[in-house]
């Protein structure tokens, strides 16, 4: 199983290749540099693996939520490659990728112990990305038995004080926790005792989730591989003014 993944939905830019479960990744923190970096990253990864796009089994991309332009860059890169090499595409949530990365990192026992995180906190992520305009992109992810991030309920764009959540204990993960820490802590009332705010989505996690999604038959055609903005109302019609 060979899959190429791209992630450009925040100020980070990354590409990853997963070949039979082994991930190689290029990652850079580079605001507004995605268009300069992403194809060279992909080209390097593919050359290093000695692969042509036609030899891949599938593609994956972070379909959002995130910066609208950033999410469209990932979508358009993957659509272009899919058109060119006739490949299926697995869209992967940006929030799922953030949660997956958190699970993978913190289920490493020595690291967890050095950070003094209780194990109960490492299998559930209340994931929040800053969505600007006073809102966050919100999703609650659980680590399933196979180790993959699985969504509980629905993702949403919401104010911090209105987030919906299951009655479970977990960790607060993502940039949204940096901006709305107090509001979220108050709303989740004791369910969160550990927070990480520097988590950026990475193509490595997109690749892991993409490969799993591909096995589960979640791949779609190029026409169906679309961004998920969550914020769908972006302008008022004349009739609504």
């Amino acid at each position, binding site marked *: 199983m060979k899959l190429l993944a791209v992630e450009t939905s925040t100020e980070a830019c990354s590409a990853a290749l997963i070949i039979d479960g082994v991930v190689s990744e290029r990652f850079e923190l580079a605001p507004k540099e995605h268009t300069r970096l992403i194809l060279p990253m992909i080209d390097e990864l593919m050359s290093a693996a000695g692969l042509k796009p036609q030899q891949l089994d599938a593609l994956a991309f972070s379909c959002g939520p995130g910066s609208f332009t950033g999410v469209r860059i990932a979508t358009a890169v993957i659509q272009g490659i899919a*058109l060119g090499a006739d490949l299926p595409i697995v869209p992967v949530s940006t929030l799922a990728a953030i949660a997956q990365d958190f699970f993978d990192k913190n289920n490493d026992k020595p690291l967890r112990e050095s950070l003094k995180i209780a194990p109960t906190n490492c299998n559930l992520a209340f994931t929040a990305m800053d969505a600007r305009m006073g809102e966050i992109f919100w999703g609650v992810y659980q680590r399933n038995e196979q180790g993959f991030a699985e969504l509980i309920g629905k993702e949403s764009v919401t104010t911090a004080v209105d987030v919906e959540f299951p009655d479970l204990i977990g960790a607060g993960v993502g940039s949204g926790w940096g901006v709305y820490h107090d509001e979220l802590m108050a709303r989740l009332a004791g369910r969160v005792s550990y927070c990480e705010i520097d988590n950026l989505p990475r193509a490595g996690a997109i690749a892991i989730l993409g490969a799993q999604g591909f096995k589960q038959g979640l791949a779609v055609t190029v026409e169906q591989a679309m961004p998920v903005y969550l914020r769908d109302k972006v302008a008022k019609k004349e009739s609504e003014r």
Partner: protein
Amino acid sequence: MYVLGIETSCDETAVAIYHSEQGLINHNLHSQVDMHSEYGGVVPELASRDHIRKLAPLIKQLMQESRLSSADINGIAYTAGPGLMGALLVGATTARSLAWAWKIPAVAVHHMEGHLLAPMLEENPPEFPFVALLISGGHTLLIQVKGIGRYQLLGESLDDAAGEAFDKTAKMLGLGYPGGPKLSALAEHGTPQIKFPRPMTDRPGLDFSFSGLKTFTLNTFNASKKTEQDQADIAAGFQQAVAETLSIKCKRALQQTGLKRLVVAGGVSANKQIRAALTEMTAKEQAQIYFPRLEFCTDNGAMIAYAGCQRLMAGQQQGLEIFARPRWPISELSQTTD
């Protein structure tokens, strides 16, 4: 050489395939005009969202209809600017990534170069050098064209573009968006009752200004009884003023450069009265006039495929960087200063 052209700079998603010897093979387009009209103008974020929905299916369909396989395509040309950043990025990113997957060169095309070369797609194309008048919703430019990539800016609008002046005036007259074509249709039922100004024609130079004319039109309309006939008469007066102003400046440009060929392109070049005024002027000047066919006056993929093909044949191509430049003066395209 087969070249796939991709255009997403504003509110049309357009694709085409051009062959260096056989000419235009096929083209396809999706217009967003109906969607934006509900908002009274182009909403950039919605334009980007629609481009990404439509572009990949359009490319797929174009390839199937053209009975070409991926191995036949030798290069990809994409509009890199000027235009809306988010919209440009969809076309540029898809194009550059597709070219990477196909292992073929990609070239970034200037949108206005596409427009000014659009008459080259016709049976009887102009020879170089010529004067080009580019009139659209975003631009009003007079350019001396010495060859592909050899452009000298002669004049431009200092405020509103010609098409913008049409749309804004139409809005003031209560004609909705995009009102330019509606204003022209209405003008056919009117006769100018007073003389509208011909901006910047009483002084030397080849620059334009349409915002004063727009204000004059508004004042005239407000001072009228605002009947349907008043509306039509005012639309006629406005349109005649624009047509004559363009005509005076083009005549000046031909005289100043000593050239005898005028190319007129861009969305506003579909306007009948403007075409008539310019045709009459060139006949008097014993010059030739060239227009693209109506469907290639507005944004299209064919002009991008054509311009890109010329640049690819001249050995130009872009690296792996996805190139998009919302503000890109056409004068920067010229490598020579002659």
